[in-house]
C-alpha cells in the first residue's frame, strides 16, 4: 500500500542508487525537509527554538558524528564531550580574536580544529581496540576538560572561567547573542544539519564508508582485502570529530551563548550522545536523529506533562521522568537491540506489504 514499488521504474543507475529509492519514501523526505525549511521558521517561538529544536538539531549533529565513529567504523569513543568542548572553545577564540569572521567560517574552522584534535586522540586506535580504546578516549575527555579549565588563555583570562559568545550577524541578521531571532538561529542550525546529514549519508554509502564498515566487521579481513586501517580509522576519527566539533560550536554559540566546560562538556555529555546512538540505532543516520529526538524531547515533554499538565510537584515529576526514560531505554534495548532505526525499518517493511502480508 504505502512504500509500494510497483510501477516505480528505474531507468538509470543513478536512479537505482539514490538514497530513497522508493517514491513514497522520497516524497516523505521532501515533505519533512519542506516543513523544516519553509514552515517551521514562520511558526517559531522562543520556547520552541531554545528549548526543543536547537538542542535537538545540535545533538543530532553530534550523534551523527559519533555514529560515524562507533556505528560505522566500530571504534568506541567516550570523548564526545571533550571534542564538543574543543569546538566550543575554538569558536570562542576565533570569535574574540577575529571579530570580522562570519559564523559559517567560525563553525567550519571549529569543526576542522576538532578534527585535528580528534585524529591525534584517534592514534591509539591503531594499536588498541574495544574497551581499551574506550578508556583511551575517556582520557581525552578528562584531559580536554582539564585543559580548558586550567589554561586561562582559552577563556581569555575571565574571572569566572566562563566563555560567552559575543553577538555576530550574517546578512544583517543576528545569529548569536540574546538579540538573535529564534527563526534565524533555527535556520542556521538546520542548514548545518541538512548539509552534514546529507554528506554523512553519502560518505557512508561510498567507498570510505565501506572501508569503515569493513574495519568494523573484521579488521584483519579488511586489511587482507586491501583496506588501509591507518587511513580508515583516522579518517573516521577525523570526520566524526569534525561533526562533533561543529555540534559543540553551535551548542556554545547559537544555543547556550555561555558555557562552562565542566558543567556543559563533562563525561555525562559523552554518555548522553552515546546513549542517543545506541537507542537510535548504531550505523544509521536516521537512528542518530531518532536517538537525539528521544533523549532531548522526551524529558522535556514528560516534565511539561507531569509538572504543568497534572500539576505534580516538580521533584516528583523529575524522579518519575528518570524512571520512565530509564525504563523506556531498557524496553527498547530488550525489544529492539538495534534501536529505533530498526523499528522504523521494520515498520516500513510491513507497510510495503500491507494490507496483504505473506
Amino acid at each position, binding site marked *: 500500500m504505502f512504500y509500494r514499488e510497483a510501477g516505480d521504474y528505474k531507468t538509470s543507475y543513478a536512479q537505482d542508487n539514490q538514497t530513497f529509492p522508493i517514491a513514497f519514501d522520497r516524497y*516523505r523526505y521532501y515533505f*519533512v525537509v519542506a*516543513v*523544516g525549511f519553509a514552515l*517551521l521558521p514562520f*511558526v517559531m*517561538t*522562543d*520556547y*520552541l527554538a*531554545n*528549548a*526543543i*529544536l536547537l*538542542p*535537538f538539531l545540535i545533538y543530532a549533529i553530534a550523534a551523527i558524528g559519533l555514529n560515524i565513529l562507533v556505528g560505522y567504523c566500530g571504534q568506541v569513543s567516550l570523548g564526545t564531550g571533550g571534542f564538543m568542548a574543543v569546538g566550543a572553545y575554538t569558536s570562542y577564540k576565533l570569535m574574540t580574536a577575529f571579530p570580522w569572521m562570519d559564523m559559517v567560517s567560525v563553525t567550519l574552522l571549529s569543526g576542522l580544529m576538532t578534527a585535528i584534535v580528534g585524529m591525534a586522540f584517534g592514534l591509539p586506535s591503531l594499536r588498541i581496540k574495544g574497551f581499551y580504546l574506550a578508556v583511551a578516549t575517556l582520557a581525552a575527555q578528562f584531559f580536554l576538560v582539564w585543559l580548558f*579549565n586550567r589554561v586561562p588563555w582559552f577563556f581569555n583570562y*575571565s*574571572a*569566572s*572561567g*566562563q566563555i*560567552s559568545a*559575543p*553577538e555576530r550577524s550574517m546578512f544583517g541578521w543576528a545569529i548569536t*547573542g*540574546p*538579540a538573535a531571532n529564534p527563526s534565524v538561529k533555527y535556520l542556521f542550525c538546520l542548514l548545518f544539519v541538512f548539509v552534514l546529514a546529507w554528506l554523512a549519508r553519502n560518505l557512508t554509502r561510498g567507498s570510505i564508508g565501506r572501508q569503515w564498515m569493513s574495519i568494523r566487521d573484521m579488521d584483519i579481513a579488511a586489511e587482507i582485502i586491501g583496506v588501509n586501517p591507518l587511513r580508515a580509522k583516522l579518517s573516521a576519527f577525523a570526520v566524526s570529530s569534525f561533526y562533533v566539533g561543529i555540534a559543540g560550536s553551535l551548542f556554545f554559540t547559537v544555543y*547556550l*551563548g*555561555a*558555557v*562552562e566546560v*565542566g*558543567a*556543559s562538556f*563533562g563525561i555525562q555529555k559523552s554518555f548522553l550522545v552515546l546513549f542517543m546512538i545506541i537507542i537510535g540505532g548504531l550505523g544509521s543516520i536516521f537512528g542518530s*536523529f*531518532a536517538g537525539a*529526538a528521544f533523549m532531548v*524531547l522526551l524529558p*522535556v*515533554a514528560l*516534565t*511539561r506533562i507531569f*509538572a*504543568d499538565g497534572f500539576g505534580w*510537584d*516538580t*521533584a516528583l*515529576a*523529575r*524522579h518519575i521522568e*528518570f524512571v520512565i526514560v530509564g525504563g523506556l531505554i531498557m524496553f527498547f534495548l530488550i525489544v529492539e537491540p538495534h534501536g529505533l532505526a530498526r523499528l522504523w525499518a521494520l515498520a516500513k517493511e510491513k507497510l510495503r506489504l500491507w494490507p496483504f502480508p505473506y
Partner: protein
Amino acid sequence: MKTLATLALGAALAAGPAMADLTFPSLSYRTGPYAANGIPFADGYADYFTLLNERDGGIGGEMANVLECETAYDTERGVECYEATKGEGALVYQPLSTGITYQLIPRASADGIPIHSMGYGRTSAANGSIFEWVFNYPANYWDGASVIINYLLQENEGSLEGRKIVLLYHNSAYGREPIRTLETLAEMHGFELVQLAVDHPGQEQGNQWLQIRRERPDFVIMWGWGVMNQVAVQEAANINFPMNNFYGVWWSGAEPDVLPAGAGADGYRSLNMNALGDLPVLDDIRQYVVDAGLAAGDGTNVGSVLYVRGMYAAMLAAEAARNAQEISGETNITPAMMRDGMESLVITEERMEELGMGGVGPAFEVTCENHGGPGLALIQEWDAEAQVWVTLTDFIAPDDSVIDPLIEEDSAAYAAENNIEPRCNES
C-alpha cells in the same frame, strides 16, 4: 512525522494557562547532587509567598504565584525553564545557580526581565550602570572573600603576614569567582594563597585534602555547594584539621553540610548573609502555611539556614514588587516596573521589624549605580552538640577599596564585549 510531532507539542505548550497574578518563577533543584541545599531554599522561597497570600491577601491585593521549574542545577534545563516560564509574566528570576545566572544575564536583559542573583552569579553585576537588569544585593562573592579575610585579620592582631591560606573551590564559574579578590588581598596582606579545585559534583576530594595535609595551611577557605560541602567537612574532620580554621562561604554553611560529619564538624565556621534566630515570621509561616498543609516541602526545614535565606530572597522580591506598585500606581506590575522597584529598593531596620524578621539582613539601599548592596556578612560557627549554627559576630564590612576597582574592571570588560553604554549619568 517527527517534526510534526514537535510542532504539535510546541503548540500545546504555547497554549499554557495565562496567569493574571504576580508571577515569581522559582528555578529550583530538588534533585541531583545539589538537592540537599536546593530544597530548603526553594521551600523558603515558596512558603513566604504562600504566607503573603494566606495572611495578607497577596502583595498590594494581587496574589503571588510561584512557578516552580526543576533545573537539577543543569544549565540546559535552566534555559528550558526560563523559556517556558518567561511568557507567563515572570517578574524576576532567582536561579540560585551561578552557571544559570550567566546564561540568563544576556537573555533576560534582552527580554527586559530583572534577575536577582542574591549573593551569587556575576559579581560585577553590582555595577548597575552596566548591568541594567541584574541585581545581586545584599552581598556578592568578592565581598564574601574580603569579609573572611577581614575577620581573619581581626582575629590575628591585624596581620596575616607569612600565613598560608588554602582556597578549596568548586571548579566552576561559581568557585572561581573569589580567586581574583583573594589574589589581590594576598598581595596586600602578604599571605600565601594556595588554590585547590574540586571538580563537579565534588564527591572526590581525597587528593585535595592530602595536599592540604602536606601544605599545612593556617586556614582553609571553601567555596563549595551541594555534596561538595558535606564531603569537605567530613574530610577535614578525618585529617583532624582544626575546624575553627576552616571557613566556608555563605553557600557552604547550612545544616545539611555539617550534619553528616557528626561531632567532627564541631567548630566549623562559615559566612552568612542572613542572621538566624527566632524570627516572628517563622511562627506565622508555621501557622498559616505549614499547619494549613500548604507548605512547599514537608515543613521540617522551617528555620534552617537556607530556608531563612530563601525566605529572605522572597521577602526582598516581595518588597521590591510592593515598591514597584507604589512607584507605578498599578497593582498588576510588569517586569519593567519590577526593575524600577528593585532599583529604588530601600530596606530599613524598621521595615524588617515590621515584617517579623528584624535584623535578618543588613539595612541597605539600592541605587542606579549600585546593584550590589553593602556586602556585609557575619560569621557563624557550627555547634555539633546542640546541632545549631551559633552567630559569632555582627555583620562585618568588606574592604571596598579592593573590590570596587575589580568590579569596575570586570564590568567595563563586559560593557566593551557587548557594546553597552553606561547609564545613570544624567541624574
